[in-house]
């Protein structure tokens, strides 16, 4: 696959993953670019077949962790406000559908930010990007049982947060 075609095909997924770590749109763009540069540098090591996507997520996750570590040294972690999240463009057509999807996404992002780091990573890899639970455990380097138990707990916690946030917005 040509490099340019690869970038255009995977930019949305890589950016989404970077955004889940960075929590800020500009930082997520920088981080996604770093991830692509790392992928480009490792072009000779790309696995083929079913192993490619988990490998890509592993590279992206390692880059993101490094990025967050550097950013923590540089300045305290910023939290994006809901308005910024809501400005994220939506590929869905139609103004009304776009507005609804944007609102749901901002709600989910805000709720995700309230989770602990490991729970957020599990939810992002397992439920957002649809990786099998074994690969999530392999990428995160934690036992399979831990991922299973934390995944179910994180889902419940996320739902509770979404409910609380939606009620708060409804009250406001």
């Amino acid at each position, binding site marked *: 696959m040509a*490099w*340019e075609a690869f*970038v*255009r095909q995977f*930019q*949305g*997924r890589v*950016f*989404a993953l970077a*955004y*889940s770590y960075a929590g800020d*749109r500009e930082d*997520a*763009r920088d981080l*996604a*670019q770093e991830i*692509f*540069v790392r992928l*480009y*540098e*490792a*072009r*000779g*090591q790309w696995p083929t077949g079913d192993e490619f996507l988990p490998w890509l997520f592993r590279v992206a996750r390692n880059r993101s962790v490094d990025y967050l570590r550097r950013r923590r040294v540089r300045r305290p972690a910023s939290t994006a406000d809901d308005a910024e999240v809501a400005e*994220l*463009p*939506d*590929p869905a057509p139609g103004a009304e559908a776009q507005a609804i*999807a944007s609102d*749901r*996404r901002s709600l*989910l*992002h805000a*709720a*995700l930010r309230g989770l602990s780091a490991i729970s957020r990573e599990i*939810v*992002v890899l397992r*439920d*957002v*990007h*649809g990786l099998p639970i074994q690969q999530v455990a392999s990428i995160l380097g934690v036992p399979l049982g831990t991922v299973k138990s934390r995944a179910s707990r994180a*889902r*419940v916690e*996320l*739902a*509770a947060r*979404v*409910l609380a946030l939606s009620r708060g917005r409804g009250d406001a």
Partner: protein
Amino acid sequence: MNRLTCDYVRAAILDPGTVPGDWVGRPDAAAHIQQCPSCRDWLEAFAAGEQAWAAEPADRFAAQVIDRTAGVEAVVCDLPLLADLDPGPGFAERVLMATSRKPATERWRPRVAGAWWAMVRRPRFAWEAAYVATVCWVLVFGNPVGAIEWSATSIRAVARERLGPPVNDLRADLDAWRSRIAPGPVPPAGEAAGPRVEPVPPVVRVWEAATNWLRSLTASVVNAIARAWERATSWSEQPAGERPAPPGEPPTDAARSPQ
């Protein structure tokens, strides 16, 4: 008819469907409960629990469960919305521009370099390296201070072996030179033709020439300064009329007066 057991009675109370027929109307069941104090106590506790359960709103817990699971399901269904976000215009071009300056690296070099830097950048690397170095040190030298002793002994031996002869020669030359230039007792006339004097080494000759030159230079400078000082003091002590002209002006000559 078989005698009823406690387990049978309690199972029938908990789940009447497991017992065939109308077990409540059986006289042996009522007789067992009346005669068995443990089953009577158990039945009282069960009845109290049933009443407490009946006092709760019928659909409260079920509604909570449904709300909870429905919320989770809804959220999980919505989560794939976050899997693909538009990074904005120009992002792909920005990535392509950044990667166009970087050539694709070879296979083993980045792997080795990456593994090395990943290992070095870990916060615990310094401690681990120190630990490994200490273990190697002890394994090689036997004990922590053995290496220091071994190093000192080796350095001393090497110094003696390599630097010993030249240093001893130089020391002997210096001693001989010192004994020669030292003002010793004047030998008697009969001993003038004493033991034969060894030739002076070049190093000593050069050193003597340098010191003599420095001494003569210092003496001439000091003499010049002393003469200048004497002239200045004698000039200042003479009366004003008898003072000769300052050294910079030629002396006044009366024969060459304009008169």
